[in-house]
């Protein structure tokens, strides 16, 4: 039996949105580490963003559902802890989409570069944590609006 190429599978994965930040895809996030065929089983390896992130289960379910819907007969999900996920693996397009959506993308220096709303650079940290494990709360002192910053890890 022939099966879709791994590139085809990657293309499908490209279209699955992150369940908590739907503006970026799972591949933008950089958590899909490998796709391979083991006989007629498609094995997808995913690394968690944060060990307790409740989205991880939903992500696995979304991948399975999407691949099954695309005609893949058998899907096996694998978790890989090492190397640990880093925001360095987030795609350039993912970073752009995040900023357009109003979330400041992760920066190597650990602090946001500019306000995703007005582009202001006078920023203050409100809290090291935010509405999901991957984000922190910041505020722009130029436009006075709070915004979320995608933590750099």
């Amino acid at each position, binding site marked *: 039996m022939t099966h879709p190429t791994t590139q085809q599978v990657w293309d499908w994965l490209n279209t699955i949105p992150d369940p908590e930040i739907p503006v970026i895809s799972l591949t933008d996030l950089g958590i899909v580490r490998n796709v391979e065929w083991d006989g007629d089983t498609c094995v997808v390896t995913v690394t968690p963003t*944060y060990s307790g*992130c409740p989205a991880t289960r939903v992500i696995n379910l979304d991948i399975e559902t999407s691949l099954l819907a695309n005609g893949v007969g058998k899907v096996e999900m694998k978790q890989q802890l090492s190397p640990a996920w880093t925001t360095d693996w987030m795609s350039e397009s993912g970073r752009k989409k995040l900023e357009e959506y109003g979330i400041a993308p992760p920066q190597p220096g650990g602090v946001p570069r500019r306000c995703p709303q007005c582009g202001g650079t006078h920023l203050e940290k409100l*809290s090291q*944590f*935010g509405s999901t494990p991957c984000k922190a709360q910041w505020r722009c002192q130029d436009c006075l609006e709070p915004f979320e910053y995608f*933590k750099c*890890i």
Partner: protein
Amino acid sequence: MTDVSQDALFEFLLRMGDNTLILGHRVSEWCGHAPILEEDIALANTALDLLGQTQLWLGYAAEVQGEGKTADDLAFLRDVWDFRNLLLVELPNGDFARTIMRQFLFDAFNSVVLGHLQTSGDENIRAIAEKASKEAAYHVERSADTVVGLGDGTRESHDRMQGALDFLWPYVGEMFASDDNDRALAEAGIAPDPAGLRDEYNALIKRVITKGTLTMPDSDFAHKGGRTGSMHTEHLGHILCEMQWLQRAYPGCKW
């Protein structure tokens, strides 16, 4: 490097997983009750990370145990005497100062231990430590900042933080009270002997405590019995009542 028994490895994994499980549960008790929204969210997120780490530690513990159990079985179906967490993490939250000081004392310990575990001879432990280290580093950064902010804050916040430190200090020594199990793992190159980590730990916390204008207690007295399971405080049973009641009342119940 020598081989280590499955029992010794299991014991070690319970010590790691029970610390994060019980502290995660304690910290989650603040959800909806913290003094300000940002702190509420921060505490809930910290609890979530700790719970995630628990899943990894107890998941591996269940695998090593080899009885077909899961992390959930270990979390919800053991009784007090089988828990191996430090007494520190089962203490009631007290006021916000005590919660934050306990968090800092634990975060500092967790980040030091996880740092060493990244070179463990056990591949699974190495991978868990690599993942958990990133979260622990973030936690200790935040709890240290908060200790400094409140310590070097108002008279009231300073006094409460000093009170919290004085109260919790006798529970710090247990972290480094190693036993034969620890020495076996150290010899096998799986985990560091906790006794050897005290200087590194003290250096880390002293820097923060001093910056927060607080005074390091000079007593060496240590309450013990948590990590060996020989004598937990009365508080652990109460936590388990709340945490385990659903599985106890409806055995095998699933979402």
